[in-house]
């Protein structure tokens, strides 16, 4: 993990009596909780009209995403996508980077020039996604290839996430093929959340399972129940370890459901209600919470304390971003090139 800018995970608890939770389980759970808490706050800021542009949440995908975040470590590369708040936080993204980007602070990593999910810190291994789906696969692959060329690849892993819909892009296909040809330590996590905006998977692909594609690309394939934190940690952790050990690229396909609209502007009324009641429709956070309590891995009071801690972290991140001054137009450098003297001079609008 890139922990320099990370929010510290809430404090350790005494492990419960019946059995120890799997390694990383409670830590991952707390990242999930922080992600959910932060996203709920972002959504309420959106409803209050405080956010410019759209808001896109990862509700229901926290177990999968956080499992990836905790499986990566400093020096790895992460190309998160729309629904990876949990994975980003677990990998080391600071909550204040999130709030500053959503609220358009010039002090955020994107300096108010880009917003919402389009954020990252390339120098810390978090690549800022562009909107164009499928494009991050080759970007992460390229970073890994560069490491190989420089002789610093061993032990490093690159990971990126995508949805069921994003797998239909040409960019995805080209990126997957390239990564496999180079046998790069790339982990591609596909969150098959049953919809791409309003489009169900039946209109997106015709293979029985997206996992079938892994073999075609030359990736090792892993199926996982995305609602189950134990399974996610196990499968994602194993895939990352395989990639790290030099066993080539890994594709994980998680079964789950997008538990929100596509964005907060969308009521998802097109969603088949039967899906919510089905196996994919579970809420990973609720399920993990139940599991913790029934197994005695932590007590109700611990969960409450974690929640309070998350809330205060979120409060602080929002307060900081809200106290930042808006962009100072007199000080904006309207230049798209880093080579200052190569920027063209045009009449100002």
């Amino acid at each position, binding site marked *: 993990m890139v922990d320099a800018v990370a929010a510290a995970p809430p404090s350790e608890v005494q492990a419960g009596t019946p059995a120890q939770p799997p390694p990383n389980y409670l830590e991952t759970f707390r990242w999930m909780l922080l992600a959910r808490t932060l996203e709920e706050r972002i959504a309420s800021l959106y409803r209050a009209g405080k956010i410019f542009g759209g808001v896109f949440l990862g509700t229901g995908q926290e177990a999968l995403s956080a499992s990836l975040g905790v499986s990566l470590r400093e020096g790895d590369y992460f190309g998160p996508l729309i629904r990876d708040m949990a994975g980003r936080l677990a990998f080391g993204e600071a909550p204040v980077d999130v709030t500053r980007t959503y609220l358009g602070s010039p002090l955020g990593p994107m300096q108010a*020039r*880009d917003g919402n999910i*389009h954020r990252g810190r390339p120098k810390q291994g978090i690549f800022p996604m562009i909107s164009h789906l499928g494009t991050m696969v080759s970007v992460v692959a390229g970073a890994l290839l560069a490491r190989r060329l420089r002789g610093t690849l061993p032990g490093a892993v690159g990971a990126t996430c995508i949805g069921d819909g994003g797998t239909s892009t040409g960019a995805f296909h080209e990126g997957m093929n390239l990564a496999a040809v180079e046998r790069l330590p790339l982990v591609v996590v596909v969150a098959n959340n049953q919809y*791409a905006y309003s489009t169900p998977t039946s*209109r997106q692909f015709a293979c029985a399972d997206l996992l079938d594609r892994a073999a075609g690309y030359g990736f090792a394939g892993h199926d996982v129940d995305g609602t189950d934190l134990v399974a996610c940690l196990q499968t994602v952790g194993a895939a990352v370890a395989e990639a790290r050990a030099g066993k080539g690229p890994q594709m994980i396909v998680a079964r789950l459901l997008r538990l929100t609209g596509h964005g907060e502007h969308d009521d998802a009324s097109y969603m088949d209600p039967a899906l919510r009641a089905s196996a994919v429709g579970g809420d990973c956070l609720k399920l993990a919470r139940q599991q913790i309590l029934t197994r005695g891995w932590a007590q109700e009071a611990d969960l409450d304390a974690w929640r309070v801690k998350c809330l205060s972290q979120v409060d602080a991140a929002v307060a900081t971003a809200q106290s930042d001054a808006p962009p100072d137009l007199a000080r904006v450098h309207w230049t798209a090139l880093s080579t200052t003297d190569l920027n063209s001079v045009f009449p100002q*609008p």
Partner: protein
Amino acid sequence: MSITYLEAIREAQAKALALDERVFIYGQDVGAFGGAFKATKGLAKEFPGRVLDSPISEDAAIGLAVGASYEGMRPIIEMQFADFSSVAFSQIVNQAATQFWRTQVPCPLVVRLPSGSTAGSGPFHSQSMEAIYAHYPGLIVMNPATVEDAYQMFLEAVSIDDPVIFCEHKFLYYHLKADALPTEIRPSLPVGKARVTRAGRDATVVTYGALVHEALSAADKLAAEGAEIEVVDLRTVKPLDLDTILGSVARTGRLLCAGEAAPWGGTTAEVISRVAQEGFTLLDAPPMRLNARDTPVPYHPALWQAHRPGAQSIVRAVRDLLKF
């Protein structure tokens, strides 16, 4: 009863589907959902089997449209945002645009591009791509600025036997209203004709899309200062109606060309260079151009506002133009 620019595009698509069996719509979420902007609302139900959801595969969507046009169909492809048409760029400029030249087989298709910037949309949901497509031979590029034009030019686009890039301005979607749809299907002006939206004799502002309305409000402000500004709405960026532009410059002697796209090259540069070459003697002042800044479109509304031309900057530019 009033109708928005967006509703006019929806109605035009309904009309196109009703008028011609060969028309179908293909794009992401255009079916039962009615599209990201609701430009195809209800059409899947009204025209069963002819409004189809595509996977997120822009390149393939255009390829499919080209193939369908070979079979005599007249496809309408909705890009969810103009910005994503860059993914289909190769198919648009290499396949669709070259087809007639290479094969003498026409390629009737319409690519709908929800274009232009709105506050908070950032670099990837804001682009104005008309000049990129206009650069390629074999494409017609339309930029309707009024509700009537959105409706009539769309129907015209569908009836044309060549690929049409139909740039709809997202800012106009909800903000621009007319009392009713035109009763006439055919536009009052033929394809490729610009419109003198406002007559004046002191300076000409040539523009298109959402900036037409900024130019009109700039003309109102300048009228208060005693300057009469003529506003020319290009309507189609390609073909470019040089005659109307030159006619206007002949009356006013002064030209400002404003566009929302990036400043290097592009539509405004094309207009200025053509006027400089073919209408040099008509000019009483150096022609001016006004574009967005040379950076991606920013996210923060204050930055966005400062990034693009608007009524105020048009007023400033015209004042300078009149001083010369």
